[in-house]
């Protein structure tokens, strides 16, 4: 078993699935000869040829719309949007077509595509390269939104996303692309979609997070453990459809919940989870649910980035607030 990074895990899953299923094609800007600007598609064109590893013209709405046409025609396209900040022009295609094709035709047609988008802050990138748009996509009916947090999770979830018969927006935290390595078995085993993953068990407080924020939450849990606080970290790796039951079960055990997202606060996915806990888990709660989020500001350029991103300190502070309540 090899120790690999998250971006290498994405690459490994793509290779694995292209090998297994000739219907899988990869398309996007610079994904072929260049191997992708993050190198997520490195080596694919040499192995599978330019017909299946497609360098597209520079047009994100086209890439997404094309993937829809390919999927309806029986291919399994995995489209890369170079950065999620360039992904907003794809929303028309995702909302109006990808998420509707199956229902609109009452099951006659389907749209099994994956839209991969590197996203999130923390790599000192230029403007438009640091947003975390999960809530925008999670609002769209008919699609799945997946946001992995480690090499192993990324490998198994990407395999699951490609094999899923419906459209999946697959958000990849650029900050974690090369932050750490993990042993990943290239066994072709997919991980379950539509489920939360317990990244760390605990008994005093539930910390729910996804993407890069899982990493930050685990660091916070380590710090809390030193202070005698046992934090359970739930990785909400499929945001839509949401596995609220696992969150409710965890909160029933801990009585407290902190939800972490690096996206702006208003209408964030943290708000959705908080609402779900309020509706269905109120009697389990010993303290008000806390959200640790990005601020309702434009994601700043690199010099101020560290002031924007939720970090270990803010998560620990929020946990302490729930412990101090009442």
């Amino acid at each position, binding site marked *: 078993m090899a120790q690999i990074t998250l971006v290498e895990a994405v690459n490994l899953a793509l290779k694995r699935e292209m090998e297994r299923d000739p219907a899988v094609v990869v398309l996007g800007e610079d994904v072929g000869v260049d191997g992708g600007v993050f190198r997520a598609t490195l080596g694919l064109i040499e192995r599978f040829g330019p017909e299946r590893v497609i360098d597209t013209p520079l047009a994100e709405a*086209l890439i997404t719309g094309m993937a829809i046409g390919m999927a309806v025609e029986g291919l399994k396209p995995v489209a890369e949007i170079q950065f999620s900040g360039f992904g907003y022009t794809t929303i028309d295609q995702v909302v109006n077509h990808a998420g509707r*094709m199956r229902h609109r*035709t009452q*099951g006659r047609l389907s749209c099994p595509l994956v839209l991969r988008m590197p996203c999130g802050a923390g790599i000192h990138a230029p403007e438009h390269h640091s947003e975390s748009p999960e809530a925008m996509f999670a609002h769209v009916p008919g699609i799945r939104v997946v946001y992995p947090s480690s090499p192993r999770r990324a490998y198994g979830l990407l395999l699951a996303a490609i094999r899923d018969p419906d459209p999946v927006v697959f958000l990849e935290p650029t900050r974690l692309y090369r932050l750490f390595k993990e042993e990943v078995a290239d066994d072709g085993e997919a991980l379950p979609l539509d489920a939360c993953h317990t990244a760390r068990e605990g008994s005093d407080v539930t910390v729910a997070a996804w993407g890069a924020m899982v990493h930050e939450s685990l660091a916070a849990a380590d710090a809390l453990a030193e202070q005698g606080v046992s934090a359970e970290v739930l990785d909400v790796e499929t945001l839509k459809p949401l596995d609220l039951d696992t969150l409710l079960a965890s909160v029933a055990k801990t009585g407290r919940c902190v939800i972490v997202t690096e996206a702006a606060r208003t209408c964030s996915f943290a708000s959705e989870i908080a609402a779900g806990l309020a509706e269905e888990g109120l009697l389990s709660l010993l303290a008000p649910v806390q959200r640790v989020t990005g601020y309702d500001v434009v994601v700043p350029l690199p010099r101020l980035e560290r002031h924007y991103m939720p970090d270990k300190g803010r998560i620990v502070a929020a946990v302490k607030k729930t412990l101090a309540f009442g």
Partner: protein
Amino acid sequence: MSVVARFEIRYSQFLDPRSKVVAPLPEFTRKTEDLAKLYRWMVLMRAYDAKAIALQRTGQINTFASLLGHEAINAGIASAMAKDDVFLMTYRENGVQLMRGVTLKELFLYWGGDERGSDYAGPRGDFPICITIAAHAAHAVGAAYAMKLRREPRAAVCALGDGATSKGDFYEAINAAGAWKLPVVFALTNNQWAISVPRAKQSAAQTLAQKAIAAGIECLQVDGNDVIAVRHAMDEALERARSGGGPTLIEMLTYRLSDHTTADDATRYRNPDEVAEAWKRDPIVRLRTYLLAAGAWNKAAEDALLKDCNEQVQAAAQAYLDTPPPTAKQMFDHLYAQLPAVLHKQRAAALGDD
């Protein structure tokens, strides 16, 4: 300065508005009974159109987009396509759909606000009506890419309107189709009006066909009221697509004789003289006059056809009206291949079972 490239836009017409033959007729017109078949379809389209408007005006279907005046375009596109080609459409191609095997009842269901109207029993692989303008041009590129990748001798046909040529989606699609030489035909209906915006305000381009030149793909302009011109251009474009010659953009000139939809009142922005003038180029009259002169049609055939078409649309409308409405369950059916657990509760609430 020197000239690095020169371009020209060809225009094709075989029957002029008075049904006079103005160019050597293509081979397929030899058998006048085949032309008479096209005529039958065009008359059925018009009967369907009239019935749909009547149903809308009496509150029995919802907003309807008429294809009045577009019958030659619809018949020309559909008759050139093979069964296993894929059709991607906007909302003014119900005639193509009929000829490809979509039933009148399915069309009434669709306009009646029922998703089951897009579950075509006939052309299972055709895309559903795309209301968002030009978004489906990208789908056509993807579908054509899949065909080319699998070395299939098939083509995608994408119907668009004049307004669509102003959208980025259109340019992105024709550009990519050209770059990959894909088997796709962009069948562009220029009916002079995008709701209230006339062609002259839509673009300063002399023709809409010429937009294809920037994408490096074949293009031409045809008389869209001349079914022979439409069919011939489609035949050539599909042959090019299937033989690896790449995409074609066909600009088909016609006129929207109807309002944009039943929710529109074109008298607010259109000169009635212009509409009256356009009626003189009626594609159905043009083909009938030709067929009559060729001895391939007569009054008895016409009377029998009108009776048959009216009976067909009447029966289909009744079948639509007799279809029990869907239950709330349908909102959740086929949203995903398998309904996710979290949606079971919502479905139960919608059905009043929670």
